[in-house]
């Protein structure tokens, strides 16, 4: 399913808002028919990147190609994209059916049957004005459009706000089901990393305008481990390894180290009486982001001195 055909190519993309650098010289490619997780903290630059890729915002500098072309005012490209924004605005008197009617006209792969199925799944009221809908119902409108559009590239920018756990599970299940039958490129931005960890084939982490991780999700799963036990023994073991995080309670330490553990590592750990605990994707990304922030702070200090 992984093909080496890029559908999006970004080179040296920079976006500056007055004195804020929102996207800082970023380069990456997005492969065809792959589900990506675009992860990062609030304000990291996720929405800015997605807006630029969908021509809803301008780059300060850099080159963006979607299906090999520049997306700006390019109908050939834009009709093949669907961007589900977190804060999508609809006309004041619009009902959900109006939004779906417009989507049906715009997206050439629109599937009415899937839309109907999803409306039922999410129990979306069809006679309520969108303006009067709850946050969850509003999110459901976006999710239904994003899925039923079957666009060649679909961006979901935190599509689940206000959706309860059941509704989110419906979204994940329907996304996987429909993707399996109709492979396409999906870029899903989410804070609920552990919920999407098994769905996304590749993980793209953005932090303060820079990409700090762009990898196959499965390859990242055993990338780090928590070593727990007597602080001295832990410190001896982690010496020379990249430590992402350390905490201690009395003489017990818990240290998150980067790098898959070898069989010899595990023997050494067992012999030293140390425990190894797995690190979830969410923990790994939190630790990696914190680690990157600490390093950046340290180098800033160095520059000041």
């Amino acid at each position, binding site marked *: 399913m992984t093909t080496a055909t890029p559908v999006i190519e970004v080179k040296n993309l920079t976006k500056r808002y007055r004195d804020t650098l929102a996207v800082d010289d970023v380069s990456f490619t997005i492969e065809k028919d792959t589900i990506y997780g675009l992860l990062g903290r609030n304000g990291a630059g996720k929405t800015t990147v997605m807006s630029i890729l969908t021509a809803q915002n301008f780059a300060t500098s850099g080159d963006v190609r979607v299906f090999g072309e520049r997306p700006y005012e390019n109908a050939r490209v834009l009709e093949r994209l669907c961007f589900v924004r977190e804060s999508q605005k609809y006309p004041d008197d619009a009902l959900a059916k109006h939004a779906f009617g417009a989507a049906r006209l715009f997206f050439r792969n629109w599937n009415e049957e899937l839309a109907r199925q999803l409306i039922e799944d999410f129990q979306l009221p069809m006679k309520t004005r969108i303006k009067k809908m709850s946050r969850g119902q509003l999110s459901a409108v976006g999710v239904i459009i994003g899925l039923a559009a079957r666009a060649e590239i679909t961006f979901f920018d935190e599509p689940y706000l206000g959706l309860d756990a059941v509704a989110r599970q419906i979204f*994940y299940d329907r996304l996987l089901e429909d993707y399996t039958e109709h492979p396409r490129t999906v870029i899903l931005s989410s804070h609920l990393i552990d919920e999407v960890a098994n769905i*996304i084939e590749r993980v793209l982490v953005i932090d303060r305008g820079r990409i700090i991780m762009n990898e196959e999700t499965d390859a990242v*799963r055993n990338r780090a481990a928590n070593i727990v036990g007597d602080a001295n023994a832990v410190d001896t073991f982690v010496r020379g390894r990249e430590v992402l995080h350390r905490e201690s309670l009395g003489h017990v330490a818990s240290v998150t180290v980067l790098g898959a553990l070898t069989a010899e590592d595990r023997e050494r750990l*067992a012999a030293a009486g140390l425990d190894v605990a*797995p*690190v979830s994707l969410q923990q790994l990304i939190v630790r990696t982001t914190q680690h990157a922030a600490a390093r950046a702070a340290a180098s800033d200090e160095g520059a000041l001195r």
Partner: protein
Amino acid sequence: MIEEGRALFLQIAESVEDAIIDGSLAEEAQAPSTNELAAFYRINPATAAKGVAMLADKGVLYKRRGIGMFVAPGARELLLRERRAAFADRFVDPLLAEARKLGLTPDDLAQLVRDRASAPAATTEGNVR
């Protein structure tokens, strides 16, 4: 069912292997498809495909063109050999390490294993409660 910290494709492959080892998936039977595995475990189909491909590389599954993947003859024997070879590392070593920590000698351990193995099923049930 899925655990953290290990590659998913390995876990998917292991789940198929387990079914072959316990006989619920017989040799020459059709193996679950990539899409069935993806739907059942709620994972990305590309990841499931990687697990299936690994089993095919290992000779556990083979492809019948246009139909799907099937369990290869001799697959169970191959997997049993592989699992038995890994048994000491995976199960005996941690057992010994914990025993040592608790001051149990290897002889104590052997005795314990014999006792538990010959105990009637009721005892185990009692412990679950």
